[in-house]
């Protein structure tokens, strides 16, 4: 079955994931009035909700294509440059995209047993936009990485 991300003109809602205590349940709905798509402001808001302030860009390496061949399936990998010991480790990595109907992509939850705070998945991008990954360490430190991905619309072979 073909699944396209379409602009259906429906009011967009941003589902913010709970990041507390490893209890990974959907916490609440934030309505962004008048916005057809998530944007930088929504991403900034989500980052502030997670770590208090927008961190400098460092410590999170994002591997993303410069140009996605198709926005339906864009491969993403990340690695956080931080220790993974019992005393200090990466707890969460939140991945967001600022040009999708909602900024949320995924939240990865780690423990020291993860060995390394790295992961990969494939995501949908509705158009050219920035992908942001914010890591939260067990002591509250925040790290961040971002990258723009160009997505071509149109395409052959229906």
């Amino acid at each position, binding site marked *: *079955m*073909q699944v396209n991300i379409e602009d259906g003109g429906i009011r967009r809602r941003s589902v913010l994931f709970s990041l507390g205590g490893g209890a990974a349940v959907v916490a609440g709905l934030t309505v962004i009035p008048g916005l057809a798509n998530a944007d930088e402001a929504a991403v900034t808001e989500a980052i502030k909700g997670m770590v208090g302030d927008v961190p400098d860009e460092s410590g999170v390496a994002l591997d993303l294509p410069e140009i996605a*061949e198709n926005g339906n*399936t864009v491969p993403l990998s990340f690695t956080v440059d931080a220790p993974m010991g019992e005393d200090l480790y990466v707890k969460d990595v939140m991945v967001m995209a600022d040009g999708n109907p909602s900024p949320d992509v995924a939240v990865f939850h780690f423990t020291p047993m993860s060995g390394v705070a790295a992961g990969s998945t494939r995501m949908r991008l509705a158009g050219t936009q920035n992908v942001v990954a914010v890591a939260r360490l067990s002591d509250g430190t925040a790290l961040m990485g971002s990258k723009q991905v160009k997505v071509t619309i*149109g*395409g052959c*072979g229906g």
Partner: protein
Amino acid sequence: MTRMVKIPGGGRLSRLMAGLVIAAVPATGAVAADGDGTRIDWGPYKVGDVRSGYTYAGAQTRAMQDDDFQNPAFLWLERGAELWDTAEGAAGKACADCHGDAEESMADVATHYPIYFEDWGKLMNIEQRINWCRETQMQAEPFEWESDDLLGITAFVKHQSKGLPVDVSVDGPAAPFFEKGKAFYEERRGQLDMACTHCHVDHPGDLIRAETLSQGQANGFPTYRLKWQTLGSLHRRFRGCNRNIRAEPFPYGSDEYTNLELYVTWRGNGLPVESPSVRK
């Protein structure tokens, strides 16, 4: 630097064609489509001037195909492997009851299809062969085209030939059908008045809007397309192409498409079977 070229003979269609202009990128055919700028030795994926769609795919798409685990098509292939051993129909038979171990019995089968099938007096492709077996030998219902079951068993059977060179026969009784397929390939159709040749012979490696055109090779089907987010057959791809040029698509499994399949497959004789491949 890009040079805009108009497709020959398209003058009367200038309005329809407005968005469909090919930008010729000079001699960059061998450069990966994701713009990584590196020239790659394509190994088995390039035989003389014949290039698999793999060579036009971006690095991430190729990586997805290179790792059988990352390739989502294997979800379907596993279903196909199950079906191979599942008895169905009034005859109470499974594929395995006649054909045994697919690794042996199907080892190079996909390299030769479509074939001329005497009972039909026309061509038969793998999907049609599977459904013929189901109806005639198993006395079971045929699978629907593009169903997960037909895609899965087709991918499973074709995968047994992975890496072997495509080697379809186009002479003897297959010759007239090959000629029909060739004529279809070269014939203008649809509101855009375009033939397959205009993209896949005249402009592989060039851009049509933001898409890199390929030679339109068939050696990787069924293929998992990132756009479809599912496995799909060659005939689905034909239908998509026909719609793109504003032509009425032919039905799945139609004589027109099976003849075309023989011609298109023959163009890639020598390329390795890649089924199931990953494409954009």
